[in-house]
């Protein structure tokens, strides 16, 4: 058996050439990929400026693109065996080259049998006819096209930035530059306004502008009048004003000197210190409104003060009236103490309820003596029940109190006697019922029984079944046979 010829043959040579072409193609593709990423960063820089995209970020983007290209280069690197398969696919060789290359170069066993040699001979013949340039042509990859477009975009962005700036700067965003340049071109500069002054004629101005001018003048005059109306001297309270306030318990009025002593002046001084204005504290204190000078109050404040005074006076009158009523109720309670006890027993056991019942009893006594009308008791009872207690029970207790006071307790005594008599009568009837014997005849009125639901016929007659038989339920194919069958039966019967 001759020694196998394992030197690189035409198949290996073809695969190596194609592999070098594929490698160069991939190098070019990955280079342009890195370039595209870097150009993307540059375009972003030109578009947004260093205000949003620092120059270091653009550099980092370029480095990221290089790193990604290297990773892609390492990961997608095809082997020679895969290159041979690609040649087979592109040239339609049905795995001829790949099989020959594998069994001669890749296989660990390096099979050198006759079959392998013969197959390699056939593959070598095919390899001579393969042109690597046609199998792996140089075509523009997507990354190349993208790089070209990004490069053109970067040039355009740079040109725009250079055209709108007198001194080239990458700091502001391009949109800002374009907008400012466009706005400057549309709005005339102040110099041009000075060069061509225009006399404003009020008659030629539109109505809106006239109105705005009039409004401005009105606002200025109002400000001046307000400044003139302010008092020039700081406000000082007078003794007359202090005496004008009503003396109300709980309402404490402090003179201004005491306020200053308690720290209000300190706050003002702190405020003045913070604002570096030594007169601020004095002005604030002087502007504070006081109740000593009635002339300094506004009308609204004066009306509020009057309402407050009226409310206090009403409250005091109410308190005086309550004191008088309590004195009169004490007198009535001495006369009808039994009635009040009954009222308290029928009412609620809570404290609020008992207090209401006492008030109701007091009012009931007052009505008995003719001091107050009876409605007052009911009102007091209902007013006391606003705390959530049973109002009906309290009203009934008030009525009972009134009735007991009239009969002086004799009504219950009469009722008790009547109940006792009725009890004896009931016992007597019960004894007679137990001793009663005999028949009892109950007479009722005779009536004809009638049904609520009308009677209906719920079944069909025998003649209806004949129509059911003649319906189309019998298949047409069997109808004749069935008819003959029944006719035969009928004939036999006859």
């Amino acid at each position, binding site marked *: 058996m001759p020694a196998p010829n394992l030197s690189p043959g035409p198949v290996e040579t073809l695969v190596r050439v194609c592999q070098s072409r594929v490698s160069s193609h991939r190098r070019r593709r990955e280079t342009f990929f890195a370039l595209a990423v870097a150009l993307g960063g540059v375009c972003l820089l030109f578009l947004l400026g260093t205000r949003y995209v620092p120059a270091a970020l653009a550099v980092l983007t370029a480095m990221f693109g290089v790193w990604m290209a290297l990773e892609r280069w390492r990961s997608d690197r095809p*082997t*020679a*065996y*895969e290159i041979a*398969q690609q040649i087979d*696919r592109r040239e339609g060789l*049905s*795995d*001829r080259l*790949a*099989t*020959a290359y*594998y*069994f001669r*170069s*890749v296989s660990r066993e390096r099979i050198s*049998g*006759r*079959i*392998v*040699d*013969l*197959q390699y*001979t*056939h593959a070598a013949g095919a390899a001579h006819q393969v042109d690597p340039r046609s199998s792996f042509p140089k075509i523009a990859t997507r990354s190349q096209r993208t790089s070209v477009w990004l490069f053109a975009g970067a040039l355009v962005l740079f040109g725009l930035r250079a055209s709108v700036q007198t001194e080239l700067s990458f700091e502001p965003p391009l949109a800002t530059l374009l907008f400012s340049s466009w706005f400057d071109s549309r709005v005339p500069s102040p110099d041009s306004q000075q060069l061509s002054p225009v006399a404003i004629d009020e008659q030629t101005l539109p109505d809106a502008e006239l109105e705005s001018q009039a409004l401005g003048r009105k606002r200025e005059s109002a400000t001046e009048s307000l400044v003139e109306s302010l008092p020039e001297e700081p406000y000082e309270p007078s003794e007359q004003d202090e005496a004008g306030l009503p003396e109300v318990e709980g309402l404490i009025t402090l003179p201004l000197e005491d306020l200053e002593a308690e720290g209000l002046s300190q706050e003002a001084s702190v405020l003045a210190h913070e604002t570096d204005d030594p007169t601020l504290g004095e002005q604030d204190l002087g502007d504070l409104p006081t109740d000593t000078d009635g002339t300094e109050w506004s009308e609204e404040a004066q009306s509020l003060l009057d309402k407050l005074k009226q409310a206090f006076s009403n409250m005091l009158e109410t308190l005086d009236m309550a004191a008088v009523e309590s004195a009169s109720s004490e007198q009535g309670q001495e006369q009808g103490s039994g009635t009040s006890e009954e009222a308290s027993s029928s009412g609620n056991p809570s404290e609020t309820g008992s207090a209401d019942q006492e008030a109701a009893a007091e009012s009931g006594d007052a009505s008995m003596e003719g001091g107050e009308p009876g409605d007052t008791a009911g009102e007091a009872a209902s007013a006391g029940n606003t705390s959530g207690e049973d109002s009906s029970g309290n009203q009934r207790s008030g009525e009972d109190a009134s009735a007991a006071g009239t009969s002086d307790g004799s009504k219950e005594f009469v009722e008790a006697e009547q109940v006792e008599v009725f009890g004896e009568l009931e016992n007597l009837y019960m004894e007679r019922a137990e001793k009663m014997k005999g028949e009892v005849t109950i007479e009722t009125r005779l009536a004809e029984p009638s049904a609520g639901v009308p009677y209906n016929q719920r079944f069909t007659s025998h003649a209806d079944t004949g129509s059911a038989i003649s319906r189309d339920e019998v298949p047409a194919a069997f109808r004749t046979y069935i008819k003959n069958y029944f006719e035969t039966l009928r004939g036999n019967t006859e």
Partner: protein
Amino acid sequence: MVATESIMQSATEQIDRVRAEIRKVIVGQEAVVDGVLNALLAGGHVLLEGVPGLGKTTLLRALGQALHLDYSRIQFTPDLMPADILGSIVMDSHESGAKRLRFERGPIFAHLLLADEINRATPRTQSALLEAMQEKTVTSGTETHNLDEPFLVMATQNPLEMEGTYPLPEAQLDRFLLKILVEYPERDELTAIIDRTAAASNPGIVAALNRDQILELRAIASRVLVAPHVRDFAINVVLATQPNPGSQTGLARKYIRYGSSPRGAQALVLCGRVRALMEGRLYMSQDDVRELALPALRHRIILNFDAHADGRTEDDILLEILSSIAPDSGPQG
């Protein structure tokens, strides 16, 4: 190398001669003829499915005459018993009066066996073929008899008139290397069939190969080179038919209930080698896998209800799987 090349050339020529002899009788049906030859040279069996009258029995007879092999035909019926196929033990009387039991061989003892309408026999009788097809042996009592090589079972079944039939179980279907669909002939082919039928004399078939040459062709076919990327492509096709979660395509999960067994991958490689040899190549390619995927896998996958409801067939799904699998890149070299 010259000797090897001559052997390969002679192998291709011999196969072409057999094809030519069969074409004398069978008009058209090249795929069927090539499939049967492929199964014969690969050492497998073939299942033909087609309506009656398409020349299945004629093909077997012509193949037996062209290959100079013994052939027998069994018409499967519901009352056919296993002993009718395998043979039975009979009492043999000697002239001297002595009697002994003797195994009477059945029709299965032939090189080519036509099991006509195999799905009409009971499962018991069908399973009698299992051992013969897989092990190439027949066991009767305690005796095991070897079947002579080459042994090819060519079973037919009728896709119509399924009432009263016993569909082959999956275990037995898996033992057929290829399942070939016998289609209706084209118009020109039908014209040729009529002309030949009307002819006065039948064309005589000359034996183009003998048993030893067939076995030699088998040996050559087993040495056809299969590169790793081609082998991996065949494996990918078989794996794609299995509806497991790691399947490459979602088609299998959607339409296939049971995918191909490893016998499917074996069939792809075995028949791919023979096909390469029949085309004069000493290497198998991915195109061979694509061409043989349908006959080698269509009876090894079981579709689910969704596939039947959508009107999808095994061939449709296999074609979609083939188109969805990218050519394998092979191992890193």
